[in-house]
């Protein structure tokens, strides 16, 4: 029998029972749309995490002042941070370390002209730009000399530049940070969201010395809340961590058995954990959606079984005029396949449309990839074959005379 005839026959059968075909397809439509939408959301989240990780910089440690108890909470070790600028310099001199930047964080109000803007201010050193792999959109980063003499210069993020300056060029302009005048000498290139959801472009970087003298309280002098460290390579991360620990313990004169007054965190490892969590989450979303696809397939099987029972006489007539068992098998299999694939096509449209709406209305990042579309089509095909086969085989197994006698 000719293949196109099979499709004609299937198409005719499906169009003569429009309502039923539509309802049967609905299961597939919902299943495929759910799979596409869930995968789009999951993959969008993954893509966002990936770009946040890339924007964070690579092979990173953060060394925080204060110890971490076994429960994970930071134990207070008095007001003054335990880490010093000299600690940061000493760490930089270790063999496995590329860069090391002490950081003194805080918030402050910025004023330019009549506009003010609250943002986070980081006092740090030029190494910070290296560690964070942060390039400039315009102007330049401050220098070690600026740090040494406590220069009142600032590098601002894109959001700050936009909020304070609009279309104006910020470089060379004077802004006030907590009343103190600072000259803007550079604008940072955009990085977008960090892993914890903060906008990394909404920030101001100033020399750590100036930050402590002019913006934060003087009690912090020469001390840093944390130090950002970049190791030379991923392979040397463990060695670097060990040598940082040894160095700081000896510099802080911490004896055997005494608790550290600092905490070293491998940020790159943490980021990878976040990435794998997102991956698992998106797999789970996809799996839940896949269940609805299977339910859609069962719907097809259900209707095909009803259809075979209802059309027993038709099957008998077809056999009486020469249909072989395999012709009948193909007829029903192709009906099931047509249902599942058309359902899949409509589901794809809804899924992609839904993903677009989610991005538009909820602001979630989504990514409909060719791989997920191909997968949905492939799975729908398999569902059509799998759930169509049993009813089709049942139809093909009928005896011509029994089928003719039915009803």
């Amino acid at each position, binding site marked *: 029998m000719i293949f196109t005839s099979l499709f004609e026959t299937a198409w005719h059968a499906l169009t003569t029972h429009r309502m039923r075909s539509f309802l049967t397809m609905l299961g597939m439509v919902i299943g495929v749309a759910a799979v596409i939408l869930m995968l789009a959301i999951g993959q969008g989240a993954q893509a966002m995490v990936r770009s946040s990780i890339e924007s964070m910089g690579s092979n990173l440690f953060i060394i925080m002042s204060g110890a971490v108890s076994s429960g994970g909470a930071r134990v207070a070790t008095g007001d003054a941070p335990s880490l010093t600028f000299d600690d940061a310099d000493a760490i930089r001199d270790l063999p496995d370390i590329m860069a090391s930047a002490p950081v003194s964080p805080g918030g402050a109000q910025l004023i330019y002209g009549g506009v003010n803007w609250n943002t986070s201010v980081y006092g740090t050193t030029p190494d910070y730009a290296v560690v964070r792999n942060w390039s400039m959109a315009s102007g330049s980063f401050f220098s070690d000399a600026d740090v040494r003499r406590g220069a009142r210069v600032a590098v601002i993020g894109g959001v700050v530049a936009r909020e304070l300056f609009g279309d104006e060029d910020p470089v060379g302009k004077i802004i006030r940070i907590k009343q103190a005048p600072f000259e803007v000498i550079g604008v940072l290139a955009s990085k977008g969201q960090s892993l914890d959801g903060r906008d990394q472009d909404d920030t101001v970087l100033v020399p750590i010395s100036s930050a402590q003298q002019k913006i934060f309280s003087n009690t912090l002098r020469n001390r840093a809340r944390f130090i950002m460290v970049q190791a030379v390579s991923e392979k040397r991360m463990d060695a670097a961590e060990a040598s940082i620990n040894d160095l700081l313990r000896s510099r802080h004169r911490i004896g055997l058995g005494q608790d550290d007054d600092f905490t070293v965190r491998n940020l790159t490892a943490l980021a990878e954990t976040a990435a794998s969590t997102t991956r698992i989450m998106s797999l789970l979303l996809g799996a839940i959606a896949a269940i609805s696809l299977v339910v859609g397939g069962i719907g097809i099987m259900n209707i095909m079984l009803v259809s075979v029972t209802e059309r027993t006489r038709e099957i008998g007539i077809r*056999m009486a*005029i*020469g249909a*072989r*068992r395999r012709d009948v098998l193909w007829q029903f299999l192709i009906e099931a396949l047509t249902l599942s694939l058309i359902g899949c096509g409509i589901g794809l449209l809804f899924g992609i449309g839904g993903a677009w709406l989610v991005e538009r209305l909820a602001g979630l990042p989504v990514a409909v990839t060719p791989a997920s579309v191909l997968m949905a089509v492939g799975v729908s095909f398999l569902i059509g074959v799998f759930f169509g086969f049993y009813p089709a085989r049942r139809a093909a197994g009928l005896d011509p*005379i029994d089928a003719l006698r039915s009803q």
Partner: protein
Amino acid sequence: MTTPGAPLIEVENLEKDYPTGAGVFQALRGVSLRIAEGEFVAIMGASGSGKSTFMNLLGCLDRPTRGSYHLDGQDVGRLSSDQLAALRNREIGFVFQGFNLLPKLTALDNVALPLMYAGIGREARRRQAQAMLERVGLGERSHHTPLQLSGGQQQRVAIARALATRPRIIFADEPTGNLDSETSRQVMDLFSQLNREEGITLVLVTHEADIAAYARRCIRFQDGRVIEDVAQAEVAA
């Protein structure tokens, strides 16, 4: 082609048992007969005498419990289900009392259906189906569905379908059973014309004497056996 003199149909001690609640029921109890190519045979007998059972066996729709059936020298009992399907498709046309057309298909598509299973392309089979509908006088009605046709017209569509693959034999089980006498006569005229002009072998069940009179041989069934097998003069159509 058949060797001269060899029968087209040859059944030997054909038996058919039906399982029923009260044990098996023997619908056929040993039927032996031969039908040569080109014959026009009427099968008569009371209701329940086994005529339909016999026709279903001849039409390869059912298998006998015991006994043998040779069609054109082939032992039908040894054929696979695919080979039987091919026989039903190409060698045999079956006409039912209740027409058995597919209600959702047009007359043309109904007639084209056996050609589809014969592997003939869409255009060719539509052309051949149209020609066959014209042959039975329904060329104008090819796009009507069965419900839009009268009983006699439906049966003529069914005959066109049976003829579509140009089989050598037509089995008809009470083809006029649902028709009034005028349309019955039209259908019977068509049958005898096919037999006379195209040499198609015809085996036809009826319990009406005037229908049986169209045939040149009459076989009478009773309780699953042949009780009479006589030649008769042809009625002028």
